[in-house]
């Protein structure tokens, strides 16, 4: 234990030196570090959102409303086909995750199956004896659709965020149907949240001129129609709520848009101009040609933003959405249309937003606590162990450096609990030294020689040190696996700290003691 081969000494010194070198960039601001030459290590610790400020948003892709929409579409088709082929039925409705109805004539089940098959081959039909039938989606097809929807959503969210100019946003999939968005350094999360959260599904539907809005509001919606609310007017928030009854059938949908731009009309009001691709342009032309003089609803996320009367057939494939827009809302809508509609609505499951103020405060508080804590421990060790206390403190210094270097190099995220973890680890790190020193004292008291006391101290304490560190590591590993965000940060610094303090207590302290022993050849151990 008291003899160090030269290469081992070199290795220990090298690790310590590297620790210091890789910690240094953290002492400077990001701006100044960028100006350093390339061969100098520059990587800094990456700060968590609770220290840097920013938003952590966990979204869930809500497939249930998409499924409901699809079932509704199938239902509409079914109704048309049943009437066409004169298949009698009662009670046709969407019930939860399936379509239920009763066939009047059970013998026509095979005809019915053929129809369903033609609408969508993935649908599954069951028919009971009394003619009660249910149509559900194939689970494998649903899963595939969910996967596609999630991937698409991630793409679209990324596009939207990019357009807002937020730098360094991270967007990643979590589990089956969740998306994690991290927006560091953002000062106005509400606008970005609004942009991400909006499904932005735009459809053009005909208003039903024969329907009575009042009747519909009382629950009697004509078949094939739906009751929609008008979108709120940002310029007039206290205006009364308007309603429209529109045909459910979508004439043109927003996924055929190629461009959308905010602009002004001739009365200088903000509007959004749009352009369709060839398919959309044709559908738009057909729909407008067939319905001149009738009102046409422009629906965004099931709310009607505008319902102009069609003046003439529009064959150019472009148009203007006039509504109650402010400059900002026109801008936002154009952005959303360009980025594309989300295939399914996104719900926020969890949000953690920290303002940059609080972030800076947290860093100061954490750093101060750390520094004071470490200073106290350093003084304590010198007071209670004298020269050997100084050895322990030097080891502690390198311990801290190596830990910071590891954090910087690994790109691990430092959070406020993470800083607490550093302070804690420093307090616990000296425990190893205490174990060794107390053992040495005991051996000396027992009458052993200097060298064998030192030897015994290090040897006997080794096993205990490893045992006690491993148990803390277990706690740290569990927290890392099961925790999220700030707790993960704590687990990382705790676990890293355990490892580095193993190194510093066992190797660095020993090296210092051995060097002192060699150089001074003491008669007494001042411990």
């Amino acid at each position, binding site marked *: 234990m008291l003899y160090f081969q030269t290469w081992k000494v070199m290795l220990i010194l090298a690790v310590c030196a590297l620790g210091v070198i890789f910690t240094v960039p953290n002492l400077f601001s990001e701006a100044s570090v960028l100006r350093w030459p390339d061969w100098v290590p520059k990587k800094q610790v990456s700060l968590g959102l609770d220290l840097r400020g920013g938003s952590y948003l966990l979204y869930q892709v809500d497939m249930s409303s998409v499924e409901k929409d699809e079932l509704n579409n199938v239902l509409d088709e079914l109704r048309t086909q049943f009437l066409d082929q004169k298949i009698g039925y009662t009670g046709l409705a969407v019930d939860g995750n399936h379509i239920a109805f009763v066939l009047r004539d059970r013998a026509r089940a095979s005809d019915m199956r053929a129809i369903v098959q033609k609408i969508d081959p993935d649908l599954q039909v069951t028919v009971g004896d009394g003619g009660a039938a249910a149509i559900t989606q194939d689970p494998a097809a649903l899963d595939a659709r969910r996967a596609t929807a999630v991937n698409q959503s991630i793409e679209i969210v990324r596009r939207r965020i990019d357009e807002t100019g937020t730098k360094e946003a991270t967007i990643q999939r979590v589990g089956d149907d969740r998306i994690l968005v991290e927006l560091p350094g953002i000062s106005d999360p509400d606008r970005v949240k609004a942009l991400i959260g909006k499904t932005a599904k735009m459809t053009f539907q005909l208003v039903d001129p024969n329907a009575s809005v009042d009747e519909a509001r009382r629950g009697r919606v004509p078949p094939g129609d739906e009751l929609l609310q008008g979108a709120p007017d940002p310029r007039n928030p206290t205006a009364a709520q308007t309603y429209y009854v529109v045909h459910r059938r979508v004439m043109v949908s927003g996924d055929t848009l190629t461009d959308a731009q905010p602009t002004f009309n001739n009365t200088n009001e903000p509007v959004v101009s749009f352009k369709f691709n060839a398919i959309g342009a044709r559908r738009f032309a057909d729909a407008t040609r067939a319905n001149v003089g009738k009102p046409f609803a422009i629906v965004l996320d099931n709310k009607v933003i505008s319902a102009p009367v069609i003046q003439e057939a529009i064959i150019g494939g472009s148009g203007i959405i006039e509504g109650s827009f402010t400059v900002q809302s026109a801008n936002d809508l154009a952005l959303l249309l360009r980025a594309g509609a989300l295939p399914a609505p996104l719900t926020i499951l969890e949000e953690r937003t920290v*303002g940059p103020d609080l972030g800076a405060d947290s860093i100061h508080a954490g750093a101060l606590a750390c520094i004071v804590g470490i200073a106290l421990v350093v003084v304590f060790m010198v007071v209670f162990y004298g020269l050997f206390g100084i050895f322990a403190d030097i080891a502690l210094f390198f311990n801290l450096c190596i830990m910071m270097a590891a954090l910087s190099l690994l790109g691990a995220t430092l959070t406020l609990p993470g800083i607490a973890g550093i302070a804690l680890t420093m307090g616990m790190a000296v*425990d190893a030294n205490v174990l060794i020193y107390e053992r040495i004292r005991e051996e000396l008291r027992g009458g052993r020689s200097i060298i064998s006391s030192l030897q015994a101290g290090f040897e006997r304490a080794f096993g205990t040190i490893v045992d006690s560190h491993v148990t803390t590591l277990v706690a740290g590993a569990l927290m890392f696996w099961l925790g999220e965000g700030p707790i993960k940060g704590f687990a990382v610094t705790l676990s890293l700290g355990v490892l580095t303090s193993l190194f510093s207590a066992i190797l660095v302290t020993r090296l210092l003691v051995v060097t002192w022993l060699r150089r001074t050849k003491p008669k007494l151990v001042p411990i």
Partner: protein
Amino acid sequence: MFRPLIIIKRIPNIDFMRLHKLGFALSLVMTLGSVVLFGVRGLNYGIDFSGGTIIEARTLTGPADLAKMRADLDSLNLGAVQLQSFGAPNEVLIRLQRQPGSDAAQERAVATVKDKLGKTVEYRRVEVVGPTVGHELIRAGVMATVLALVAIMIYVWFRFEWQFGVGAMMSTLHDTITTIGLFSLLQIEFNLTTLAAILTIAGYSINDTVVIYDRVRETMRRHRSMDFVTLINKSLNETLSRTILTVTTVALAVLSLLVFGGEVLRGFSIAMLWGIVVGTYSSLFIAAPLLFYIRPKRSARGVEAAAAEAEKVR
């Protein structure tokens, strides 16, 4: 070089085992008390587990008028709204219960509050946890705690014998339960950060216990016929110096976190402070004496040694 300050000049000779029955009684009382407190008073769950919203706001126009704010927020019909001063006089902490309904309802509530408060405040922090994630975090938290206890026991069993494992688990379990009792008593907010404190306390407590067990094992090997009472006492006394010094260094680090670490870490620091005290106590007065009752095996002991033991503990 100056002489270091040595408080404990020789190995003391405190008869820990004589007090051990008192220690067991005290531990039992504390454990039962904690369980009762937990059942009756419950924990002050943070939004991480109960769902809901926390908004930390700073009024821009002088100190916060809590009464007016409370009246304003109550009028929004968002259920019970907690409002308290937080640090400086112009900083408030608003807490909304979990809104009935889905995850989306939580965000709507936040929007409503922000609308109401308008431009009079700036938002330092907003945290929203919906019911879905809340449940998941509870599950993860409970699982982490249980797994930690089991893993620790397995490790100690592996490194020592099973009897040591039982002692280790009992003492760690005691520490966990009494820390939860403390949370209940002081109604400290129980969130993810304080759960991390509990796990860290478990790690620290075991740390301490293992050091003592190590010494017991060594003494067992050296003095094969020593009776357990003397053995345990000797081990505890020999490690006492280290125990006190280590508790002090960790306490120094935790105290500075408590004093300087800010509001967010307050619950964590208090828990840790209690944890190191109770962790040390449990190693001395639960883990060690338990070995007397659950004897680890070793080579034949004299009948006299057994008799002498019985005398000492009477």
